[in-house]
């Protein structure tokens, strides 16, 4: 029953996309993926996603740290706001960002139709992932382990590097992988602010949409397959990381 459900919902559609992309054979697939438009969209998507995942790895860990270890007025509100980018329909996120960082920005920061706009949109949408994976691990960390390290002579920086960081690392990396996977598939939040200029600000998901609109189903399927493979590689890497973490935990 579970297998049937999984097949209907996940496996068959995925297989269909892969098959569709191979309709003109492997060389046809390659030709579709390497058209200037498709390859530039894929490149932008992967590079921007990597950048975003890295930035949110650092910032997300920092925010989780502050939320767990520090006390400040309004902490509960911040705690709730963290999930907002995740809960918000992404198109609304895109609208908000366009209003704030668009041509009529009240802050005087215009990121519209620029790659930096894409990055900001992705940063916004993927912020919760690292925060929410690191936070519970940080909460569970045994204070006594840090005290043990301190009484053995370790200073604060050493305690962080040698005791805390290794415990957080699996969670940090899995949060980063999730943020990356989300970034490569992001559509709604980037579609408004990027302006979808081919060769410049068009991300893969929007490029797929464009190809479908212009009736190039094979091309759309080919780009989709590439995204699928990248996501799969990320998930396998994530799984390996978690095994590595649990062997040591």
């Amino acid at each position, binding site marked *: 029953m579970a297998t049937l459900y999984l097949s209907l919902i996940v496996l068959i559609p995925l297989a269909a996309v892969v098959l569709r992309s191979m309709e003109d054979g492997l060389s046809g697939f390659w030709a579709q993926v390497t058209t200037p438009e498709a390859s530039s969209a894929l490149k932008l998507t992967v590079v921007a996603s990597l950048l975003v995942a890295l930035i949110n790895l650092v910032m997300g860990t920092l925010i989780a740290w502050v939320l767990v270890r520090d006390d400040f007025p309004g902490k509960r509100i911040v705690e709730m706001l963290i999930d907002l980018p995740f809960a918000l329909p992404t198109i609304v996120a895109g609208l908000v960002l366009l209003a704030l960082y668009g041509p009529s920005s009240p802050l005087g920061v215009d990121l519209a139709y620029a790659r930096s706009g894409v990055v900001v949109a992705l940063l916004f949408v993927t912020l919760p992932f690292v925060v929410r994976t690191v936070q519970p691990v940080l909460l569970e960390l045994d204070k006594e*382990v840090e005290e*043990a390290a*301190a*009484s*053995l002579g370790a200073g604060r920086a050493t305690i962080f590097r040698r005791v805390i960081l*290794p*415990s957080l690392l699996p969670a940090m990396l899995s949060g980063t992988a999730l943020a990356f996977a989300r970034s490569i598939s992001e559509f709604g939040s980037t579609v408004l602010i990027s302006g979808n200029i081919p060769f410049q600000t068009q991300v893969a998901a929007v490029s797929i949409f464009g190809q479908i609109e212009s009736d190039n189903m094979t091309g759309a399927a080919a780009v989709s397959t590439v995204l699928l493979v990248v996501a799969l590689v990320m998930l396998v890497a994530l799984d390996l990381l978690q095994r590595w973490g649990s062997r*040591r935990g």
Partner: protein
Amino acid sequence: MIRATNVSKNFGTFAALRDVSVDIPTGALTALLGPSGGGKSTLLRIIAGLETPDSGTIEIGGEDSTKLSPQRRNVGFVFQHYAAFKHMTVFGNVAFGLEIRKRPKAQIKARVDELLELVHLEQFAHRYPAQLSGGQRQRMALARALAVEPKVLLLDEPFGALDAQVRKELRSWLRRLHDEVHVTTVFVTHDQEEAMEVADEIVVMAGGEVQQVGSPDDLYERPSSEFVMSFLGPTTRVGGALVRPHDVDLLPDPAPGTVAATVQRVVRLGFEVRVDLLVDDEPTWAQITRDQARRLAARPGDRVFLRAGTADIAREVAV
């Protein structure tokens, strides 16, 4: 010597320590004994620098350590729940303090091997803490604390998380280890049997204050208060006085200084026999040997004569 002088500590409105002054002798194995919430763990953590006292001073080996950070106190600390570095091997855990001190690699290896042998974990050097039993983890934690040759070794309920069998093994092992290593050691426990068996000196703490300091014999024979007496062993009341049940003599006939009692119940517990009694409608009990019980041959409802001896009287009878 570790000297605490007028140490007080409050957590919110709760006074964990009230003006505590105590000297802990160098080279000895000292127990901080008392009920939970009595302040003993707080005192231990203040000695280690893991808590700061609200007032008072701590001297370790003649040096005022009150304002020293835990890093600079050179104490070894062992936690109830091991506080193992989970992502490091047993070797890595024990080597940690030496690596912080930037000792040469060969020297670290030699020292860690020596310690692992001392705590009987030499075959487990490359395991992770998760692959060890509780007792093994605690021995690893002990080796880790000893690695940096601390001036004092502090153990906070070190056997509290272990099951009864392992706990008994480890405490006699700790005693033997201390006889080998001779480092000034303080351990916190709420188990009087553990303190009596292991410690040279016991500091009884309750209500954030030191109740009495002395050797196990001192405390047992000459408790300074009813609290200390009842905390260190079984007690019962005879005519308003607190006595040890094994210091109560039961005689078949009246004699000078005896009071009449009615036998309620006779319970055999292996070597010893517990006799529940009523004296003037007040319940009390006596702990006698099997031989004594046979000679007395008392049954429920019988009338016997009871003499509540002091410790000295008890000794005469035993001879």
